[in-house]
């Protein structure tokens, strides 16, 4: 197992280097980060040249990539072109915000999905099962941005008709969020709609996996044996069936979590949440390669790590799986 992990980590370094070079190249050739200055009359050429010199914007892309690697390693990703601010503090801030959003959404989604999936499997072809199946497909088919917009419109309609705003439309906190428990409650209140939006697709997907997995496990020989031994149905289902049915979900959740840590781009954009996704979109819009690269490195690392975690967890949970 140890040699497998070390080998995977070494592969990951190669993947990171290749991905970072490709993304740096694509972002760099996609446009001039100082482009908007060209339509400002009386622009100071001296000032523009200062920035070009300090960021090596006139050098070939491989050379600029080398400067970036040096900056990333020795200077905590350096500074952004826009605002000339250090990148790392901003990245930490948005990572924390995204983590809050994703953690809550994923935990709730897993809980709901397990409930729905297990019950659907136990009551296969019942009214509940058909209803859950229908809503799962609806959830999978509904675009995230549309769902987010509809929820916002709903909140506005309620406000216009009753004068009460049940949830905030956008942002992460109120004007005066307070501190301690008040701050936590205020943050939770602001995250309700985004969490709901993120949950819909996750619940739909996870519940289908759980249902399928449970159905497969429930018809297996060892459960028939357990029932034949006279074990109560609850014990058969929860102890022997459910635990084994969870194995594929662990893999799925680990992979999904790694992806989401890069930011729920659409959700964060629509709700103007100061997270990784919005950070990435803003940097890309500004043609600023340096925050984009920092984002990429964090996101790619998360995906690699959680892929590895998924593999290890799978091997740990299922003794039949052995890594060489």
């Amino acid at each position: 197992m140890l040699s497998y992990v070390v080998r995977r980590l070494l592969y990951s370094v190669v993947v990171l280097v290749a991905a970072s070079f490709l993304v740096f190249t694509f972002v760099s050739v996609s446009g001039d980060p100082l482009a908007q200055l060209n339509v400002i009359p009386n622009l100071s050429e001296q000032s523009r040249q200062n920035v070009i010199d300090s960021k090596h914007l006139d050098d070939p892309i491989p050379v600029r990539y080398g400067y970036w690697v040096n900056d990333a390693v020795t200077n905590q990703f350096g500074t952004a072109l826009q605002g000339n601010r250090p990148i790392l503090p901003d990245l930490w801030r948005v990572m924390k915000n995204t983590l809050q959003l994703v953690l809550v959404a994923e935990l709730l989604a897993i809980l709901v999905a397990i409930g729905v999936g297990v019950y659907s499997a136990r009551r296969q072809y019942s009214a509940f099962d058909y209803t859950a199946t229908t809503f799962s497909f609806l959830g999978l088919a509904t675009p995230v941005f549309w769902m987010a917009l509809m929820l916002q419109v709903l909140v506005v309609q309620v406000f216009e008709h009753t004068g009460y705003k049940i949830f905030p439309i956008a942002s992460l906190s109120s004007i005066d969020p307070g501190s301690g428990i008040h701050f936590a409650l205020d943050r939770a209140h602001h995250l309700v709609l985004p969490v709901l939006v993120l949950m819909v697709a996750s619940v739909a997907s996870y519940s289908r996996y759980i249902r399928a997995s449970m159905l497969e496990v429930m018809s297996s020989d060892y459960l028939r044996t357990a029932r034949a031994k006279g074990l109560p149905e609850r014990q058969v289902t929860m102890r022997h069936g459910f635990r084994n049915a969870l194995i594929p979900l662990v893999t799925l959740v680990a992979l999904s979590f790694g992806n989401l840590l890069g930011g729920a781009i659409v959700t964060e954009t629509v709700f103007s949440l100061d997270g990784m996704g919005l950070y990435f979109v803003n940097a890309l819009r500004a043609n600023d390669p340096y925050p984009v690269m920092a984002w990429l490195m964090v996101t790619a690392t998360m995906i690699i790590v959680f892929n590895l975690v998924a593999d290890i967890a799978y091997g740990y949970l299922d003794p039949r799986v052995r890594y060489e």
Partner: protein
Amino acid sequence: MQGLGVDKRSIALSVLAVAAIGSLVFGPAAPAGPERTSAGTVVFIHEQEPPTLRGGWVDNSLLATGLVTNNIWYGGQIYDGTARLQPRLFEAKPKLVSKSPQTVSFKYKASAVWSDGKPVTCEDWKATWRVFVNPQFNVVSRAGFEDIKSVTCNGKAGTIVFARPFAAWESLVSGGAYAAHVIRGKNMNQMFNDAIPVSSGPWKFQSWQRGIQLTLVKNAHFKAGPAMKLDRVVFRYILDTNARFQAMKAGEGHVMEPQPQLQIAEIVNDRDFKVQREPEFAFEHIDIQLGPRGHPALKLLYVRQALMTGINRQQLASALFRTLAPGLPKLDNLVFKPFEKGTYQPHFKKWAYDPSKVISILKSKGCTGGPDAPSDTNTAIFSCPGVGRLAFRFFTTAGNQLRTLAFEVIERQLKSAGIELIPRFQTAGTLFGGTLPSGDWDLIMFTYGGGPDSKITSNTLYSCGEDQNYGNYCNPKATAAFNAATREFDVPKRHALLNQGDAQLAVDLPSIPLYTRPKFVISTGGLTGAVLNTTSEGTPWNVATWQLK
């Protein structure tokens, strides 16, 4: 319940969880809106968060920064709602003492003080000048500052002597000044990243929760003008357009200054909101490439005349802004705007839309292959002697609904008269960073910003050999007029020179003026006093008069 594996403890936990979620929903909800936060707090919803508070810098030239800092680095004079300079920190208007050498004097009010109690003096202005002429500091523009020879201070009073004449001296002198005691010895390229410690204006910086909001509070030391009635103004940054408008409707903000966006049409008839709209100084136009990388046909005046005559500019303005800004006039001058009464001369008016005339112009020059009469279904395109087919690459920014619609209207109009446009939509970064300066385009549509005193920049845009004359237009007559305008102190004479240059542009047609962009301010019924300002001062220019009902 037993069969489902649910025990009493699980039920209790579930009830607690439901109660917790319920408390989130119903607890903080209460009657919504910013009113509940503080009686004296106005929430300004804005679409863009400044990266730093160091505005007018190459790494941050966003208007969003000016919205915050204009009332911190307060001007000696500011542009009011009618775009006229009015004294604020200055005792009176600055004076042109001598024309040769150009010498200007000004004096700050005795009551002008920084929020830390120190007086605002000429030394602050002098320190600001030194920042702008320091080649190590990355200011966006040094125009005017680099023409100054010396600044002599005597307490609140100052005398500026220019080495070269600078016509727009009044707005230059009237700009906001940094606090000398704050910036002394500092690397300005790193200053004001996260906060500004002092203020000479009606509000001062309090806090900034990045990604969420920036809070400004009343400056109790401000005595040089009317004080703010409000306790504070909070800029809430909501970057998504739909979310911004929904947030306004949901009572999360009092005022916003949106770009011309279709969502405004949804709110314009809502009695809960007041929508102000005025044409601003920024204008949309199409530049024509006359250099070696453009289509050879565009070097022929008659082709440019055909283009000019083939675009129905009034219909375009009406189609784009029918609901947002009905009655928006087309633009007939590349220097002055229709609302600048007394100086606006519609030189381009002579190029009235006439597709039949387009066809007759082209046929009279021997062009063939086009239609005999204008037709919406026409597919025949003219070819002209020595320059080939009249099919032009038309560049503009991608992802802008108004520009996409504008292209469709213009393309249809020209095609009906036998001229083809080939769409080239690019990201702003590619368009302005690569394409525009390269000169490798035929026609390019974008907006030039501007202000009441920016007209002399026509010199940099249309004079021979200037860096930002991307269309490579050159006519010594126009260049002479625009150059002379930059040195003419007498305002009526300067305007006459600029109009002289514009009249030549209307003959040579290096550019097609389309319309001035409308500017919008949306406020809720609960806020009074917010008045649209068409200059870069922004809506908070008169924040002292803002009040909540």
